[in-house]
């Protein structure tokens, strides 16, 4: 150790009784920066985020394409919007896993002993995750185009499609945030997450038409929010009537948000008091 002094404690300016809103927002962005940085510095996380959409696209297109649609190109036009949904929905798990990890490793206690608003770590985790969704959407669309996907609508419609996905992912991430606060380990969040997500993602029309499914599954796939979202994306990226599907998926997103965000916040408050 060097013998240099650590510098005496700084003279204390008048201490604020509460954190200001401006500092709360700034703190949330700092913590969002942290979670984005973690994507960058954690190779597994980064690879997962980049390679998963690529893997799904290659596998589904070449394995199912010929059988389902007669040609891989035809199938890609039909399945890319679905794979886009699948990749982004899987990416929403990140929030919950990170929250759970922070709580169990004691990083959270460090935050809680700092003079920042209590909700900043939660807001930071969710803000940071929006960046994951952008990456996921970007990779899925970009690689899809390389494989031969062609947009058949306007740029405006495509942007709307991306925004709709972001909105839906934002709503979904509150479910995992809730789990992340309640479940003790990141592995637990992942397990419960997949248990919930697989039926939701695959019990839908994202990969194939539903008309060969048994009745009960058709019924489920019909009301499944993921089906609406995939329909909406298909319409916005490749054409067709979009209004109903967009409206339904937005309603679902709002519904999920309205139910799970308050539960997640309440659980979070309990955990941090």
């Amino acid at each position, binding site marked *: 150790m060097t013998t240099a002094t650590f510098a005496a404690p700084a003279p204390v300016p008048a201490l604020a009784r509460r954190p200001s809103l401006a500092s709360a927002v700034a703190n949330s962005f700092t913590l969002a920066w942290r979670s984005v940085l973690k994507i960058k510095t954690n190779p597994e996380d980064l690879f997962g985020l980049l390679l998963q959409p690529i893997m799904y696209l290659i596998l589904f297109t070449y394995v199912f394409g010929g059988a389902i649609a007669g040609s891989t190109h035809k199938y890609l036009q039909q399945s890319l919007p679905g794979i886009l949904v699948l990749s982004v929905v899987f990416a929403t798990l990140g929030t919950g896993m990170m929250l759970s990890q922070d709580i169990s490793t004691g990083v959270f206690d460090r935050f809680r*002993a700092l003079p920042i608003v209590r909700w900043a770590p939660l807001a930071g985790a969710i803000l940071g995750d929006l960046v994951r969704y952008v990456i996921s959407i970007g990779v899925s669309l970009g690689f899809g185009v390389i494989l031969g996907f062609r947009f058949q609508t306007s740029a405006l419609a495509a942007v709307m499609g991306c925004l709709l996905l972001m909105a839906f992912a934002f709503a979904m991430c509150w479910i995992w945030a809730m789990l992340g606060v309640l479940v003790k380990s990141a592995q637990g969040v992942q397990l419960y997450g997949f248990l919930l997500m697989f039926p939701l993602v695959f019990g839908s029309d994202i990969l194939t038409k539903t008309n060969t499914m048994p009745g009960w599954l058709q019924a489920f796939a019909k009301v499944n929010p993921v089906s609406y979202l995939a329909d909406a994306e298909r319409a916005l990226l490749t054409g067709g009537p979009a209004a109903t599907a967009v409206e339904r998926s937005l309603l679902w997103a709002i519904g999920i948000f309205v139910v799970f965000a308050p539960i997640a916040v309440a659980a979070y408050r309990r955990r941090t008091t």
Partner: protein
Amino acid sequence: MGGMKDVTNAIETRGLVKRFGKTTALAGVDLAARTGSVLGLLGPNGAGKTTAVRILATLLRPDDGEARVCGYDVVRDAHRVRQLIGLTGQYASVDEGLSGTNNLIMIGRLLGLSRSDAKTRAADLLERFELTDAAGRPAKTYSGGMRRRLDLAASLVGRPRVLYLDEPTTGLDPHSRNEVWGMIRQLVSDGTTVLLTTQYLEEADQLAHDIAVIDHGSVIATGTPEELKASAGRQVLEVTPASRADLSAVADLLEQLIGATPAIAVESGQVSVQVEPGSSLPHIVHAFEDRSIELAEFALRRASLDEVFLSLTGHRAEEETPAEAEESTKAGKAAAATPARELDGSAR
């Protein structure tokens, strides 16, 4: 200077009570740390030390009693208290996925430093804690000692007035431990008030101005290390025979003369036994001469804190009580304390 109250005790608690279900972690604890001093909170694993620190760090609410930091109540004025404290220990940890630099920059930014100030502060602290070479590496690649130093650096980013160090050297090798001690002394000489919890008596003896001995959630003794040692009233006679072959003969003779069972330290070739003040030492020396046992060393010293602790609590410092085991599992820390304590460290 406006915001802070002028107080003699930077840390003060009165009648602090905390229960976890059926376990009473704190049963009415009174503590006081004079501004600018080190208060050592000494007790076995699970005595309630960590619970007390968590309350003082605004992480837990007490069930009863009150705690003040620089005059501010930790419950009602939590935000102000958080502007004054730094916390490091078993539970507040660094982000393993971030580099050392980014960990410190993040905390600087959270504390309201500008980007460039946060960078400068991070670089300064990393240099002082000799982490510059590892600054860019993720913290998960750090050794235990490096991580502890980063943890300590993280708690200092905001130049805290009051620093909580919860078992800062548990699990560290002697070299790293000495480094941490050096840093603590430096901080205190710069005016920081430190609350140090430890189960190592030597650590409290070395660093603390005042000590509160805590066991089963209650403070059972307070005072300076010297006062505590004196209050136990006893002295220890240490006898080192010139030849190790005489070790057991020395022990037998001492037992016979003093009536207490001596402890034999085989490695150091030393026999030690507690004696009442006023025992006749010449008489003992003569007895050795009569038997022609040649002595290399014959010394009387005051009881060590470990011996004081034993006489106060009836058990050794590192023994775990059942309630403690429960709490330590809860906190998710390694339950077993490392056997790093060296009883005779102060004799070096």
